């Protein structure tokens, strides 16, 4: 079993990042081409100023009415996304690995902070899960994929935490951590997680239409 360890920590990392970056770029390019072909109008109406205006109102907590109406969800969603993105980038173990390989690195989180952030991510995911099950409209909207996705996102965090704390079977957990992390990266361009890449475009387009053409706000 441990034969795949080097594979998972070497080649598959490259594959994962390759698919993540390549897949994201490819899908965005395909989308851009499709827009050229079938909705050329989109380019005419896209306005960077109004796109930015709208995006800003949606990446700051409570800047939009929808967010103000749902304070709990908003706080959790923001904390979740922040921890979700920052933890893997700044967790000591990742930075050190990179330093060892390339003699370059960056500031990293104190271990306790990384621990807390990891727990937050998992708790937030539990909250999302609970919300999906308990809130009628969200339950109705949820598909099996949405639940799998929660698990997919939780997995690298749980296994990472496990590995770091060297609990029972942490070596296996470490392997699973790498595999699940890689799996998440690979899935990113091809599942609902792709919302992260689409966000600037859909929000930006809405902002452009509302701002430049319709003279109204969309937040």
């Amino acid at each position, binding site marked *: 079993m441990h034969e795949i360890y080097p594979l998972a920590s070497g080649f598959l990392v490259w594959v994962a990042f390759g698919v993540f970056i390549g897949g994201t770029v490819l899908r965005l390019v395909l989308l851009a081409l499709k827009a050229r072909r079938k909705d050329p109008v989109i380019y005419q109406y896209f306005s960077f100023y109004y796109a930015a205006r709208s995006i800003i109102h949606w990446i700051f907590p409570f800047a939009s009415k929808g967010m103000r109406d*749902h304070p709990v969800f908003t706080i959790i969603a923001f904390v979740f996304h922040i921890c979700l993105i920052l933890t893997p980038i700044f967790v000591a173990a990742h930075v050190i690995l990179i330093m060892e390989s390339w003699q370059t690195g960056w500031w990293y989180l104190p271990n306790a902070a990384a621990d807390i952030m990891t727990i937050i991510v998992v708790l937030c995911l539990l909250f999302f899960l609970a919300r999906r099950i308990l809130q009628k409209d969200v339950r109705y*909207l949820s598909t099996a994929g949405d639940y799998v996705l929660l698990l997919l996102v939780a997995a690298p965090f749980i296994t990472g935490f496990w590995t770091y704390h060297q609990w029972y079977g942490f070596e296996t957990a470490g392997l699973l951590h790498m595999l699940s992390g890689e799996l998440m990266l690979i899935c990113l361009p091809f599942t609902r997680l792709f919302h992260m890449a689409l966000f600037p475009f859909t929000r930006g387009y809405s902002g452009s239409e*509302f701002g430049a053409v319709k003279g109204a706000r969309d937040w």
Partner: protein
Amino acid sequence: MNTKNNTETGADQKQIHDVAIEEGARRLTREKIHSVLSELIRTEGGARLSAYSNACVHCGMCSEACHHYLSNDRDPKLSPAGKVKQTIAVIMARKGKVGPDFMKKACEIAFTECNLCRRCMMYCPFGIDVAYLMLFIRRACHKLGVVPQYIQDTAHSHSATMNQMWVRDDEWIDTLQWQEEEARDEIPNIRIPIEKEGADIFYSVIGPEPKFRAQLIYQMAVIMHASGADWTMSATPGWDNSDMCMYTGDMEMTARLKKVHFEAATRLKTKRIVMGECGHAFRSVYDVGNRLLGWKMPPLPMVHAIEFYYEILQQGHIEIENKFEQPVTFHDPCNIVRGRGLHETARYVVDKTCKTFIELEPNREHNFCCGAGGGVINCGPPFKNKRVKSNRIKAEQLASAKSKGAEVVIAPCHNCHGGLEDIINHYELGMEIKFLADILYECMKKE
């Protein structure tokens, strides 16, 4: 022959009987549906369709934006994303392999459970335009011939007469002359200038004005006259700016209607188009038809009546003699507020003309739709009960303004009028509805 044999089959029963939907679906086969839908997705399913389908995280942030959802005890099926889930999501997932019964249901959802008001777009973190997706379904319904009877009949009227109400060329001119005559009883030398080449303003209205609300033309003539405007109306088709084809998904007809409308204005060498108080017509001319025809923005400046009132008040072209006494509230029509940002402009006019103004909550871009827009009221009597019940939230919103003293609701949109009237009657709110022109006409100095 009476073909209006539509009946409502009961409130709890979801599917309402509409002969045209039934008949249309009966003529369909799965093969036909598949071929039409896949062709439509191939040719018209653009980047927005894929981006919106892929970006939605099923978070439900849009649910509370929708009056249908709020008014029907938070029925998840009526949340914007819920309507997407039942319609376009299925079509995409099954690559168009759906049956006639599915199309019937999709038709009812897209035509009568969404007003295309775009409120949800402002609550979705991704700005997903559910109205666009519902329009895609309507377009599919048009292509498949499954469209509610009444709105289809209206689309036919548009195609045959270039107006919404089967008004014939002579009836239109006759109405203008009749209103001119009426107005002369009040202001002897007033004129409704027909076909005046080179006038500054091309004034256009919607078909229901000559048909049912001719006094609005009279009132506008008085406002134009008092403000000294150089205006004209077309004697030829093109005088009507309305458009139900945009809502049945017949975009070819929408393009034709808007072409005829713009060309009436350019033929008369007018400099700008001022239109009466209508929301959907504004959307059609300002935002939809122009794009279909190849214009980024309308080729002539498009001025909604509210902007025109603002202009003449602000520049002192008309004077307000006595402000309107009764306390008023103001309904922001989606198509000119979310669709054109005229909320402050309208408040300026209300402020100048009315003594007491009470805001609806929420208001401006966040106002709830009247429930009639997006062609829903045009789907006719079979769906009326459902429409009114699906906007209980509007009744609550109005009632709250009433409890603060508002007696009159100003709604500068024809559809809103129809919708609000039904709501006020059904929920027994006892409020009066007026156009801004009604108020202006009543309060201004006439000569």
